[in-house]
């Protein structure tokens, strides 16, 4: 079931088309990654969903209700990229403030604050001022303030930027718990490996429109295909004629650099790698190292958006 649908979203700022017909859906209880190069339209899209940007065309539906683009729907929870906290308040006071502004009161507010503090691992630091916190602690509290009021849909803008791997794991565990409890989450990130490992689906946006969407395997199928990149490091370079023979027999292979690195694209490693190793042995060379890599989100992303800088 779709909880959030973006249909043909269009928005221009002067001559720049920030959104140029973006279309995608967020499903119930999923963790969806929204990826794109800088200036692709991610922030404009998030701001349109939160009611900070009015679309020139298209529509955004939340639980089948068209959003008017003027105010934030109460079902939404927002986690901005900035650490949007009051540094001179304690962790508990920040949570109480934002919970109160979202309409939580009394025991319900106290319960939710305790739940959030426990969930982000800051129960023992609840009465410390936020300005004394590390980057990771602030980041976790930043997220907690956005989900405290039990939103059904949470929008997170770069929720793990600038934090250590431990905090990152903690944050994604927390997001996974939320998704499991039925909350739908849409996050933007530049950490492609995180999106690949932690998100159920990925939407890639560029030049204001969605250029690919789906699970990791769907994206791979749509773009780079299911090959493996095999890299062999040899003990010594292979001379010219032998190299031509080997690469000729093994389709899609090539020697790099000084002739000691051999790279090959293989659909089935188990059947294609042994003959290549035999050829190398026959040529009188030994293999020092073997690296086999499957298609990554990085390769999909670069395939779709290119290598040009977008600043």
């Amino acid at each position, binding site marked *: 079931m779709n909880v959030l649908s973006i249909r043909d979203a269009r928005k221009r700022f002067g001559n720049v088309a920030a959104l140029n017909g973006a279309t995608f859906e967020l499903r119930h209880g999923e963790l969806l990654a929204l990826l794109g190069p800088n200036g692709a339209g991610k922030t404009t899209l998030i701001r349109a969903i*939160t009611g*900070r940007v009015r679309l020139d065309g298209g529509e955004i539906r939340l639980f089948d209700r068209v959003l008017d683009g003027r105010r934030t729907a109460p079902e939404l929870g927002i986690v901005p990229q*900035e650490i949007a906290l009051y540094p001179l308040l304690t962790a508990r006071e920040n949570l109480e403030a934002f919970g109160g502004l979202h309409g939580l009161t009394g025991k319900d507010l106290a319960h939710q604050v305790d739940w959030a503090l426990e969930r982000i691992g800051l129960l023992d630091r609840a009465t410390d001022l936020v300005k004394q916190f590390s980057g990771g602690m602030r980041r976790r509290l930043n997220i907690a303030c956005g989900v405290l009021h039990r939103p059904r849909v949470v929008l997170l803008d770069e929720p793990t930027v600038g934090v250590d791997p431990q905090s990152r794991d903690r944050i994604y565990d927390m997001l996974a718990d939320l998704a499991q409890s039925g909350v739908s989450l849409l996050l933007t990130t530049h950490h492609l490996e995180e999106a690949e490992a932690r998100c159920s689906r990925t939407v890639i946006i560029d030049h204001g429109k969605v250029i690919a969407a789906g699970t990791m395997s769907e994206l791979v199928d749509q773009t780079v295909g299911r090959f493996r990149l095999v890299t062999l490091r040899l003990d010594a370079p292979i001379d010219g004629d032998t190299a031509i023979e080997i690469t000729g027999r093994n389709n899609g292979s090539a020697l790099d650099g000084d002739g000691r690195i051999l790279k090959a694209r293989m659909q089935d490693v188990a059947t294609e790698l042994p003959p290549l190793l035999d050829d190398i042995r026959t040529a009188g060379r030994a293999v020092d190292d073997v690296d086999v890599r499957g298609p990554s989100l990085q390769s999909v992303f670069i395939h779709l958006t290119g290598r040009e800088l977008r600043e």
Partner: protein
Amino acid sequence: MRTLMWVGWTNLRRDRVAQALTFLLPIVFFSIFASVFGGQGDAATARIRIAVVDEDHSEVSARLIEGLTNEKGLRTQTTTDASGKGTVLDRAAAERLVRGGDVPVAVVIPAGLGAAFSANGFAGGGPSVQLLSDVSDRIAPQMVLGLLQKVAMTAAPDLLMQGGMRQFEKYAGAMTPQQKVAVDQWLPRLKAQGHASGTGNSTATGAMPITVDVVDVMRTDNRRGSLISFYAAGIGVMFLLFSSVAGAGGALLDEAETGTLERLLSTNIGMTGVLVGKWILLALIGCLQLTVMFLWGRVAFGLPLFSHLPGFAVMTLFTAAAAAALGLVLASLAKSRAQLSGFSTILILTMSALGGSMFPRFLMSESMQKVGLLTFNAWALDGYLKVFWRQAAIWQLWPQILVLVTLTGVFLSLARLLARRWESA
């Protein structure tokens, strides 16, 4: 070294706020101070408004009033309305004008002055002219006193001479017929000279033909303490503006930069709620700030705070509310904290100088006093002055309250309009 100088110069060239603070603000301040203290203003500089009451109705009193009216340094009013309409002023009405702050000085020409003047000439001896004055203005009564003596000497020389002749004949014997004819021929020329010199700038010398009593009509119990209130209000309002702007900057610009504003806007309260909440808090802090200031004035300088508590509370509430609203406008207008800081420093210092926070507005020319009324400070200070100095009832504060409420409404509306930039694109 050269590189550092180049970097510094380039930064200055590209920072308009720094340029304004470096070059514009000193010029603005120099101009204001030069206009006030250097007589650089227009022809109306230091023209003092006075009320004149004629209880004598003699030729002498008429001549004195004519002389005062012709003085370039004075603007004379003999009726209840400054434009010349209304009823002729009596002593009570003139005193009300002084107590109400409409004029700083009223001249009361008592009955019998003309007769004594004509009879005694330079010998004087008649009833004293009274200067009903508001001593919070320490300059105007002294200036009027000097000008009055000058006018007495020059406006009616023929009458003065007649009085002198009578005194001469009384003590030295009667003049001969030829001498009387000569004096009678001379008197019209003296009278003509008197009319001519009434518009001049010569100063009076020699013995004074009239005596003058300066009467403080404010009749305050604690003159020093009441005057302290003027300075407490002046400084208090200026710093209230600084703290309101700083607070509003923290409330809006910092929140926008850190992202908490975005988060606040995603809650139930919306931008109007955010602004109203910030405004109420800033106004309450402003009330607290002014209260602390006046309490210190009470403790350290004997400022009569508790005897004027209702008026103080009313003025403080409306002043703080307007200052908070102005702070929100400036914070909504500025793009960054640095821009807000620079721009507001220029604006607040200029408003404070023109509005009377740095020196009393009565020192300024009339045109500058009128310009001062465009500032927030002038109305706030007038209100405090009414409360502490003129002992005004709360209802008499209505012009100041009306202006402050209007300013508050305008500022809040403007801030709401400008804050739309944070809401939606």
